[in-house]
């Protein structure tokens, strides 16, 4: 791959002919004119992921998912060679935005993809709108992201989809009173809001809404409060890594023996780390759109191929978001023979296919994903911990959009 001549800073500022001439001159000087021509055949995707920092595991899973799809389905499609440009945004929104701009302006990518966290997707939305570049959100899960730009398509999931399904399940299973305990950041607050709304509409009672600061992982006082409130269940959403500590202290404090159940958003028992969480998580009920234990031929093939390509790593919902996101792009490139912009976006909308997660559909109106939500229980199968699916709620649209 021919790297854009970074040494000339003028390229990024001066748009138009002079810069292009300089570029060409530079290329000619270096005798690189030929690769530069061949590059026209390339269909470039800018994949922006948090590869370092606290969310590095998100980036790793996403990239592995994307690469697996390309490895399985070939990187030449519709006469174009798909080229990935992977960039690390360290999970900082201003960095994501700057990288998105660079990718669009300097590298001339035709699709922006990735986006590990909600703020990262929001920061980049204006870039997609202004440059008319389709942007595929493969991870971030806040409901309103797809409304931030008409160029955004999502292949991950939305928090309201998951927690409203969980609220319905809880009501059906004789859970009348809950205490909600979420981490005090956007997805946590989102899940608290949508869960409580649905649960109260169903006739349930939310005794207490607790928000744990991101930086204070000792759950002792919060869990003591939960215990004293004596709910039927604890509803929780915390970032995956923190979930381990929460579940351990939950058991240590004897809440399970006090008859309190745990129902959680599925990221808490993230497949990536579930097996290391220990027996404390056994029996935890969660709702999510993907479990590596999903029982289908497509998923078994996916999990097997993924674990072969990435030894020691189990695919989680991030990997599937990347895999399916790449599928959406791949198929759209095939259908439009590499045309970018509007045509590509149109070809992404309305795609229906079977993902490792089960049937899935990109809603043409909202550009958001419609898929099954599964209620799962953590069980030990063949010596390892898995999220076993126990119930399916078919074709869930994002309730955040159904207003």
């Amino acid at each position, binding site marked *: 791959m021919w790297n854009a001549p970074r040494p000339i800073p003028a390229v990024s500022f001066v748009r138009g002919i002079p810069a292009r001439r300089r570029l060409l001159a530079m290329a000619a000087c270096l005798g690189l004119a030929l690769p530069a021509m061949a590059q026209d055949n390339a269909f470039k995707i800018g994949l922006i992921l948090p590869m370092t920092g606290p969310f590095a*595991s998100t980036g790793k899973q996403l990239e592995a998912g994307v690469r697996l799809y390309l490895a399985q389905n070939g990187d030449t499609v519709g006469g174009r060679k798909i080229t990935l440009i992977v960039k690390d945004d360290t999970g900082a929104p201003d960095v994501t935005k700057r990288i998105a701009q660079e990718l669009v302006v300097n590298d001339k990518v035709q699709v922006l993809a990735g986006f590990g966290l909600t703020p990262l997707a929001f920061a980049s939305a204006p870039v997609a709108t202004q440059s008319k570049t389709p942007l595929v959100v493969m991870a971030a899960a806040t409901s309103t992201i797809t409304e931030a730009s008409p160029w955004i398509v999502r292949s991950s999931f939305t928090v309201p989809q998951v927690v409203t399904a969980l609220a319905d399940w809880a009501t059906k299973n004789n859970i009348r009173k809950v205490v909600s305990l979420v981490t005090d950041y956007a997805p946590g607050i989102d899940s608290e809001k949508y869960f409580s709304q649905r649960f109260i509409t169903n006739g349930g009672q939310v005794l207490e809404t607790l928000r744990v600061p991101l930086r204070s992982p*000792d759950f002792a006082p919060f869990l003591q409060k939960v215990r004293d409130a004596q709910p039927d269940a604890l509803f929780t959403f915390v970032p*995956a890594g923190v979930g*381990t*500590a929460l579940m351990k202290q939950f058991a240590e404090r004897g809440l399970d023996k006090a008859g309190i159940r745990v129902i959680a958003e599925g990221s808490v028992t993230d497949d990536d780390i579930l097996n*290391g969480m220990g027996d404390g998580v056994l029996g935890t009920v969660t709702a999510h759109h993907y479990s590596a234990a999903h029982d289908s031929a497509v998923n078994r093939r996916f999990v097997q191929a993924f674990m072969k390509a990435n030894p020691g790593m189990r695919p989680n919902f991030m990997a599937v978001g990347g895999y399916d996101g790449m599928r959406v792009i791949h198929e759209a490139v095939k259908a439009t023979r590499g045309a970018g912009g509007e045509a590509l976006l149109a070809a992404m909308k309305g795609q229906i296919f079977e993902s490792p997660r089960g049937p899935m559909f990109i809603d043409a109106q909202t550009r958001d994903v419609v898929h099954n939500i599964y209620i799962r229980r953590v069980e030990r199968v063949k010596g390892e911990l898995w999220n076993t699916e126990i119930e399916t709620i078919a074709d869930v649209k994002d309730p955040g959009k159904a207003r």
Partner: protein
Amino acid sequence: MPTLVFDGIAYGMLLFILAVGLSVTLGLMNFINLAHGAFAMLGGYLTVAFTQRLGVPFVPAILLAFLATGLVGAVLERLLYRPMYQRSHLDQVLFSIGLVFMSVAATDWLVGSQQQNVHLPAWLQGRSEFGGGSLGMGHYRLFIIVVCALLVLGLQAILSKTRFGARLRASVDDARVAAGLGIDVNRVFSLTFAVGSGLAGLGGALGAEVLGLDPGFPLKFLVYFLIVVAVGGTSSVTGPLLAALLLGLADVGGKYFIPKLGAFIVYALIIALLLWRPNGLFSRGGSGR
């Protein structure tokens, strides 16, 4: 309510073990070592490695973590810290905060950014309840309290009763005169620094279960260490102990009774305390100094 007090004490004791090493290096050696948390993190990661990779039982593992971290501390003291003793406090702060960032990045690179899990032996899991459930004591938290109490007694005895304690206090008061009396000041400092780092490692080893352990650990808890040292003063072992207990109780109580303000209560309390006694609760020579 008794449960809450118990939790607060356990949390405070943990903070004490984590911070006491810093109080030793800062108070006795007059060196500002913001990288203290990095040693704590090292202790935590070593414990995870010992128990899970090498199958060492938990208690020997935390002792090994203490020794290994102390050893690393001694080596770093010789190579990196000693030249910094004579420099200004600003230089020391910049130097040690640089070390913190390097340790964060290095840990991230070596073991990844995910949370580490410590697997406790069965006898440390579970809890006992007294008074009809009004006092529930988690066994692990009880263990922390016991370890901490032993540490306090031990440290106090070493500092006030032993020959080494006397040498250390002499070296701190006037290094030149102490050297003139035949005390090997460098060796005393080196040993003190090693023990301080080792204690941080022990704190990290014990704390991983309760506080979580990821590469951001030294930064996440830096503020807490500094609060313990700032409020407790650096002249004794009991000062930081009381400060840590106060901090633990306020933190746990605040989060329980006013969860919306939970994370903030501690800081408000510290601001109030420091306005009242700018030199800390137990500063040498009282509040007038």
